[in-house]
């Protein structure tokens, strides 16, 4: 009940007048961090499934991980995705200095290296398919392809988003909504690189040992 007494000589403030403090970028950034949390849990679930099915019992006579992973080939994918993130970081630094041409250039470079990453992944898949290692062969291969493809799908959506932002930067300039989106895209793009590092360690490196 103590909260309901009034301090003497100090009338309480009852209404809040003045400009409404709406920080658009802060709310959108928080919302996007929360979305990334749910995305992280999707990957957590898929990694867990991979962990369960990555067992000789689950290969059903098909190839195991040592036979299908190529850590050297995947190393070039790692370089591509990290370079793409670096290019986008350059765009973010340019954003800070309001240097629009460099933002456009950074996004273009990020798209280029993202495309190289996806192309390498498709070559890898095509090679495995050619050798008869398809997702339908065994529980292990199902988990392997789903994990890699889910990450690849995220990369593809990231590419689409990069393209949309390229147009928005050119059309609207560096306005508040565009900047809010660019910052969220940075989070998304770097997160995909972080996931790829996990994939590289848990699938390619662990598999090759």
């Amino acid at each position, binding site marked *: *009940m103590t*909260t*309901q007494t*009034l301090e003497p000589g100090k009338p*309480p*403030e*009852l*209404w*809040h*007048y*003045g400009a*409404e403090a*709406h*920080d658009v970028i*802060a*709310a959108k950034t*928080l*919302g996007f961090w*929360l*979305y990334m*949390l*749910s*995305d992280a*849990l*999707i990957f*957590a*679930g*898929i990694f*867990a*499934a991979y962990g*369960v*099915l990555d067992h000789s*019992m*689950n*290969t*059903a006579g*098909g190839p195991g991980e040592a036979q299908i992973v190529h850590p050297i080939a995947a190393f070039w994918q790692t370089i591509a995705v990290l370079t793409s993130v670096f290019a986008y970081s350059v765009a973010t630094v340019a954003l800070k200095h309001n240097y629009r041409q460099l933002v456009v250039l950074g996004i273009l470079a990020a798209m280029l290296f993202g495309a190289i990453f996806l192309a390498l992944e498709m070559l890898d898949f095509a090679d495995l398919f050619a050798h008869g290692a398809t*997702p*339908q*062969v*065994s*529980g*292990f291969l*199902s*988990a392997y*392809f*789903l994990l890699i493809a889910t990450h690849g799908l995220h990369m593809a959506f990231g590419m*689409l988003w990069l393209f*949309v932002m390229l147009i*928005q930067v050119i*059309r*609207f300039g560096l306005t508040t*909504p565009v900047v809010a*989106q660019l910052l969220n895209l940075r989070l998304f793009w770097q997160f995909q690189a972080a996931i790829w590092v996990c994939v590289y360690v848990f699938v390619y490196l662990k598999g090759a040992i």
Partner: protein
Amino acid sequence: MFVHLQGPYSFLFGRLTLAAIPYNNAIIQFAFVFAAIAALLVVAPVLYYRKIPYLFREWLTTVDHKKIGVMYIIVGLVMMFRGFFDGLMIRTQQVMADGPHSAGHLEAAHGYLPPSHFDQIYSSHGTIMIIFAATPILTGLGNIIVPLQIGARDMAFPTMNAISLWLTTVGAALIMASLFIGDFSTAGWVGLIPLTELDFSPSAGVDYWMWAIQISSVGTTLNAINVIATIITMRAPGMRWDRLPIFTWTTLSTSIIGLTSFPILGVALALLGADRYLGTHFYTAGLGGNLMLYTNLFWIWGHPEVYFLVLPAFGILSEVVPVFAEKPLFGYITMVAATFAIAGVSWLVWLHHFFTMGAGPKVNSFFSVATMAVGIPTGVKVFNWLFTLYRGRITFDTPMLWAAGALFLLLAGGLTGMMLAIPAINYMVHNSVFVVAHFHCMVLVIVYAIFAAVIFWFPKVFGFKLDERSGKWFFWCFTLGTLLVFTAMFGLGFMGETRRLDYLYDTDWFPALEIEEIGIGFYSLSCLLFGWMLFVSIRDRAKLKPVNDPWGKARTLEWLTRSPVPFYNFAVTPHVNTRDELTFRYLNHLSTEPDHFEAIHMPRNTPIPIIIGALAFGFGFGITWRIWWMTGLSLLGIIAVVIYRSFARDTGYHLSAEVMSQLEHEPPLGVIAESQFLSKRPLGGAGAH
């Protein structure tokens, strides 16, 4: 790439053929006539009074959190009625199909439902009640009340809020479509594996179940993001964390659970989808699949989902009990701590749904102890409510009756839950109707809290109270039904009746089954009484006191603004000084109305969310029947609409100080005051900026 399917297939209609429509089934015919009459009763007045433009302008395209909440609750109540009807059919089948001499009707050997039809009914009963009734109603209540309780003007992302609503509605619509086009899953609401695999369930039923849940859970995840961002960034000045109303706290904790658990359900179902559509082997019985992977993933979502539902119910009780005891809530801090303790432990108990998996004594012991640990914070909550009631000035208005009923059910459900937490007992009663009776007590806590909340906050949204007399009849009739059905069911569980039986072999069960049937009769009567309560209340709405604080003793911020609440919530943002702000202002004779007004900014209505919803339905229906052109076009459509929306810049409008003053002194009539009429009529000062 896609799996090879048995049966006819065409490019235009996929697997869908005329034979998929069960027009010759008497029960489906009845359901169709019933649904058609109900639809006619809704559509005819809309057409007669030419309200389609109004409906489209004010409701279908709205981004107002209160209207979205109301629509969530309407979807939830409609689905709850459908789910109840399934329950009625299950009970009637069991009482008719007891013993080898029980008669068979229609196409059934015993009772009136053949096994596959009965299986569809219990599967849809569970799926609907958990995911399409309880979840949307609680989400809707959170949508309406949370921004009001924290003194916000809307949610953090109003358009995304509407998208969440329409995705949930699409899920519900897919379930309803499965009634008349094709069939529904026969594998229970949990999707018993490997029964859900294509080899054992080749029809589109499992696909309906899977995609309905998948699409609506995207909506729930988006809503969770929205609620968390709203509570963190949109609180009124002075609304410190230690002043947040308990319902807002519980909605926050529930949204954290939703945000972190629904993605796991998404994964569990996506892997099942890969098995069914691409022929992979995640959960198949052979070729390196792992059945228990599904069961674990499902319950890693499934158990948090239970607390996702029950925590807002606890929040509702924490709001209703102090109002009708006329005392501040006892133990605010412990209540918040208990809420987050329950939310945290919810992640560590999933395995108690399948102790019989045989993971061994060490694993089972851990999950047993973790499950029992839930009792500690829950006990803290119960004692807090009791101490709030202790020496309070208790009045038994209808919301308080429902709250009191919920406490008794929590006791029954909680104590049987403690029994089930002990693996030795659990092995004995696993898959018996004892378990069914236990979790129905728990979900009825949620239902009781929902009715308490609907009746308690109804005047806040619509400006008049629901009729107390018929409301009390409704309560007692519903409670009698609850007691009869579930007391008998606990007994049947100990007598050895297992779950999901379309035929019962033991005639000794018959008396208890009859008691259950009488109970379900009272439930049916209470459905009619609910309708009668709405009818009487709407008829007598002028008499039912449209005042700001209809209960005369409300405590929290949502009652500071007018009832029915205007579309902008608060004309001037309130400054919060204490936990029970309204009681504080009453006791100290402080102003509850601002003396002057300033311009405010509001989000503009948009048809984008309902377009996304329509496309999501196209996606869900297309992929269920494997109509690939429809699936692909809908998915591309959704992506295109989202990109188009990202180019929109003029998404809000201003209301000037004069307009605000006019609105506050001559409030427009009608339900939760029409929002967009200002931008349509030359009232001055309004419109685009």
